[in-house]
């Protein structure tokens, strides 16, 4: 009876979809460069063993244990993206500015007590670990492949009939089929597959334009204890809050002026949002074998984040004499509603080892001279895992099992380095630092890295402090406009230069 009921509902709803989570979604929630306060950014984010800064909540919470005072911190920021793409020999440039912020919150250090703990500290902060605000565009002439071929592949490999092609892939292949970007292929009176209307042999201009917004923010509740000013142990419970919006259009235009070759252009538009909230735990310790040396170790558990993604898509194709200009949208095929997906993501775990040398660890600020500090971090990008939020969702489980297998193959573990230092001429400090984040891709042909160089100034006096930092990040990555199974894939190389100005103002209370 239950089975009959389910079949009846299936027949009535004809639930349709083809667009889903991809390995790129895992990377978006894991590949971060240093952020935090202006001071932390100026020293390359090498905060693992240093402590004494609210950014420790997000790196090594034991660092909060150095506080015996109370402090409030605000970190507004500004960033400017300069993007350079190279796609099929064409170079494209663009820029996009945005407002951001770093670590903002409060630290409450306790006084010495008679317990085993010399002192303890508690902190609450909010920090933006990644800003997604950007605009990218690239184009090139391609006479080898077309984005229409991804739809051909999907329909033929799925064994889709024309009815299935028309109805069951409403965020991709159905739009292509309905607008005659692709059509059924007959041979000898038999339906044998699908064909593209794109004249690949003579070439098409391919353009991809993407505007992204949002950020990966983390609210942290950190607690740390201090034993004899030698050993600091801390933990933070963190709540990642992720908001991501992507407006994408992709277009292919006939390079010829031939009005009779059955193709002028096709444009695909997509509006995608992804919102999530989750939890993770960060554990750490800092040990001072001597007054000048600090050793740190921190372990970040994976974040467990529940996501809700929504998508709308439409397509317009002009096939000239074949079918003219035809439009189709997912809204008209889905009662005006977006496609919605609820799933969970387990982000990669990471481990951080660190060391620093602090010159003149004394109470008199006029005698404090500076420090050098370094972190080495391992992030296992291939450990990201997707799962369906609905335990009864058999097809969802099957999809996410396959997706997780691809994540394991496509990504790898990477080692990141951070190093920085400060020279102090009380009340002024001068800082410099840098970091290198390795490629998360297992395929060496996909060149990717993130290099940050930063410098900053600080002033501390009369119960407050102010730090200003400029960080310049060079992000190298690749962008695939579409992916094919049975032909060589074409990708753009992406050089993103991001300038980030961050100001941190803090007050002792």
């Amino acid at each position, binding site marked *: 009876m239950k089975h009959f009921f389910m079949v009846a509902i299936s027949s009535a709803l004809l639930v349709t979809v083809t667009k889903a989570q991809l390995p790129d979604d895992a990377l978006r929630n894991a590949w971060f460069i240093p952020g935090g306060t202006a001071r932390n950014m100026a020293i390359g984010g090498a905060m693992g063993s240093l402590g004494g800064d609210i950014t420790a909540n997000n790196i090594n919470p034991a660092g909060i244990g150095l506080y015996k*005072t109370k402090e409030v911190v605000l970190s507004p920021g500004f960033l400017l993206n300069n993007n350079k793409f190279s796609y099929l020999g064409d170079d494209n440039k663009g820029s996009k500015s945005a407002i951001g912020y770093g670590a903002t919150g409060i630290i409450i250090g306790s006084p010495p007590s008679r317990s085993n703990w010399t002192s303890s500290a508690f902190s609450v902060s909010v920090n933006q670990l990644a800003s997604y605000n950007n605009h990218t565009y690239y184009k090139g002439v391609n006479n080898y492949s077309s984005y229409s*071929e991804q739809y051909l592949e999907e329909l033929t490999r799925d064994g889709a009939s024309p009815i*299935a092609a028309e109805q*069951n*892939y409403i965020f991709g292949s159905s739009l292509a089929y309905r607008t005659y970007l692709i059509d059924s292929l007959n041979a000898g009176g038999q339906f044998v597959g699908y*064909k593209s209307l794109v004249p690949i042999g003579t070439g098409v201009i391919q353009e991809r334009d993407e505007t992204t917004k949002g950020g990966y923010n983390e609210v942290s509740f950190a607690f740390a204890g201090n034993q004899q000013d030698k050993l600091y142990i801390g933990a933070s419970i963190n709540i990642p809050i992720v908001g991501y919006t992507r407006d994408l259009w992709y277009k292919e235009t006939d390079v010829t002026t031939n009005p009779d070759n059955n193709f002028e252009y096709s444009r695909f538009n997509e509006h995608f949002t992804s919102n999530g909230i989750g939890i993770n735990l960060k554990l750490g310790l800092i040990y001072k074998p001597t007054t000048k040396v600090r050793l740190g170790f921190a372990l970040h558990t994976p974040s467990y984040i529940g996501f809700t993604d929504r998508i709308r898509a439409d397509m317009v194709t002009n096939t000239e004499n074949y079918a003219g200009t035809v439009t189709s949208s997912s809204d008209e095929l889905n*009662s005006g509603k977006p496609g919605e997906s609820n799933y969970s993501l387990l982000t990669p775990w990471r481990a951080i080892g660190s060391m620093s040398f602090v010159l003149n660890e004394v109470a008199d600020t006029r005698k404090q001279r500076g420090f050098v500090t370094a972190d080495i971090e391992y992030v296992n990008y291939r450990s990201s895992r997707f799962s369906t939020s609905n335990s009864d969702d058999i097809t969802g489980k099957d999809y996410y099992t*396959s997706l997780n297998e691809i994540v394991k193959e496509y990504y790898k573990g990477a080692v990141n380095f951070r190093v920085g230092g400060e020279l102090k001429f009380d009340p002024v400090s001068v800082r410099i630092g840098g970091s290198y984040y390795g490629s998360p891709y297992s*395929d060496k042909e996909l060149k990717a890295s993130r290099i940050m160089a930063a410098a900053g100034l600080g002033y501390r006096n009369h119960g407050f402090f102010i730090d200003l930092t400029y960080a310049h990040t060079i992000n190298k990555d690749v962008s695939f406009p579409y*992916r094919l199974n049975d032909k060589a894939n074409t990708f753009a190389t992406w050089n993103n230069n991001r300038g980030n100005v961050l100001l941190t103002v803090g007050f002792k209370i």
Partner: protein
Amino acid sequence: MKNIIIPCAFAVLLLSSCSSAYKATSTPDDVYYSPAPDAKAGAEDRYDDYTSSSDDNYLRMKVRNRYQWNGIDDYSYWNDSRYDFGYSCSPSRSVLLNPYNPYFGFAYTPWGYWNNPAYTLVYYKNPQVYYGNTGKTNLTAYRNKNYNTNRNSFGSLFKQSFGNNTTNNYNSNNATRTFNTNTTPSNSAGGRSGGFNSSGSSSGTSRPPRKG
């Protein structure tokens, strides 16, 4: 930009007006050395709020004003058995006063198991039905490490030339893909490749006819 600057400036002004024991001195730098609060001269009263003992607080309060807060300090009021219906009626006032009663074990809460916000997992989701099957070509394409760029290695170029599936026909002007010989086209193909659920119906519409 203006929207951010104004609140930040306001917050800075507000915080800078807060009293701080360090206004007349240099700002401690906790990276190097964090001064313990009682180490500063004349700071005895600043740390009254650190007093953690509730007994101390209670005694201080009573010394200041013996009668203030008597209403909530009335043992007979809070333990009046006429209004205490025991743990079976929640929330009992006695439970509110002592939710972690040892007689009821660690997990007991005054809200009861089903109503406790810490335990409730209410899943309001309509039944979902998924339809169709898919080859997940959007995922399997990630396994294709054959790249069409000028920067390709000799190995990739070799694979491009000789490593492709014979079912495609990309040398002609229009690309095509044909079914495998043992494939029977199905109306239930596709439908869901793991992601987005469609709640509407598309069965009533069809694509427009071709010209001519």
